[in-house]
């Protein structure tokens, strides 16, 4: 099984430069780390085209769908979390009904909520997300367990005429909490970054009114 950094590194490294990437919380932090490292710590050199659905669990697929309908020539990659997807499971039907062609919907399945902090068990221990996506009407669906297979398949999957859904089985993060642990205060950035990222995306796309 792969870890979340491996899962997201494949996307960060191999997605087309003009593609659009929408991520939820756990993936968002992984992309932050991966992109910053690739830019040698210079945040201004991060690649454009990524936005986060934060703090908004369940919103990533909808944001990605809207972008895909507005800009059908661009690849749109959504990196969802399993608990986030459960909040808007009907979104699978919404996406499949709209049938965006260059739309790749990835779910990071680690079976936990508040990964690394609480590792609370999500409410879907036996459901197949890929199976539900297929039933909803996604054109291609698959389940991938290893980082090697994922790196091999990602460029091929991007060439699909979609929508496409990929369920990535990912390791849980090790639990960091213990007696005496104190949760850090949420930084302001958590509440302002969506606004900043959306504005930056519109400036990049030339669509800001």
């Amino acid at each position, binding site marked *: 099984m792969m870890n979340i950094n491996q899962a997201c590194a494949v996307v960060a490294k191999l997605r087309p430069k003009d593609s659009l990437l929408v991520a939820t919380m756990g993936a968002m932090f992984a992309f932050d780390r991966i992109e910053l490292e690739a830019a040698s710590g210079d945040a201004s050199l991060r690649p454009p085209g990524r936005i986060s659905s934060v703090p908004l669990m369940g919103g990533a697929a*909808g*944001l990605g*769908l*809207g972008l895909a*309908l*507005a800009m059908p020539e661009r690849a749109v990659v959504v990196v969802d979390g399993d608990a986030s997807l459960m909040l808007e499971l*009907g979104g699978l039907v919404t996406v499949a009904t*709209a049938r965006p062609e260059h739309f790749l919907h990835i779910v990071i399945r680690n079976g936990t909520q508040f990964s690394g902090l609480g590792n609370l068990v999500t409410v879907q221990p036996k459901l197949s997300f890929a199976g539900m996506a297929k039933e909803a009407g996604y054109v291609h669906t698959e389940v991938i367990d290893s980082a090697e297979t994922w790196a091999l398949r990602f460029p091929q999957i991007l060439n699909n005429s979609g929508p496409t859904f990929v369920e990535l089985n990912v390791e849980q993060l090790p639990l960091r909490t213990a007696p005496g642990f104190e949760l850090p205060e949420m930084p302001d950035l958590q509440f302002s970054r969506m606004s900043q990222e959306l504005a930056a995306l519109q400036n990049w796309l030339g669509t800001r009114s």
Partner: protein
Amino acid sequence: MSSVNLQEFSIPASACLEAMARNRVDHVVTVPDWVQLALHQKIEAGVPGVRLVPCCSENQVITVAAGLTLGGKRPLLMMQNQGLYNCMNTLRAVCLDAQVPLVFMVGQFGREYSNLGKPSTDSRRTMVRILEPLLKVINVPFLSLDSEKNLYRMDEAFALAHAQRTAVVLVVSAPMAWR
């Protein structure tokens, strides 16, 4: 029985389509609304230049419309009052925190005909009564569509939403007319 003349308050769906065209609406993103049923039927039958995007929840209506807006489109969101109550957190995230300008048409489902022409806050039904106070509390501007002559407010709503980078709600008071 109410003695209210419903025709006085019913907006013709065709007039609403004209207002949408004037405002360059290119997508309607929706969970359907009983109050706006006549308009839904016309859109579902096909309107040149307007793509209908049906969603499974009002949260998706907002996020899909936000994505469309980021991509340079002009969506109109349609839902009913209880749908708006359902998507408060998404509205908070997308329109208040992330400042995506969106225009909603929200039907006052359940409004007594005897309440038409009076403040909706006088309604005996919670569903109807709390809509405008709720929007005031969360600082979302709203404009009433009480009759056909109010449709110029759609133009105001788009202008206001984009000028202030926020949500603006057009409150549809009475069932739309099938003409």
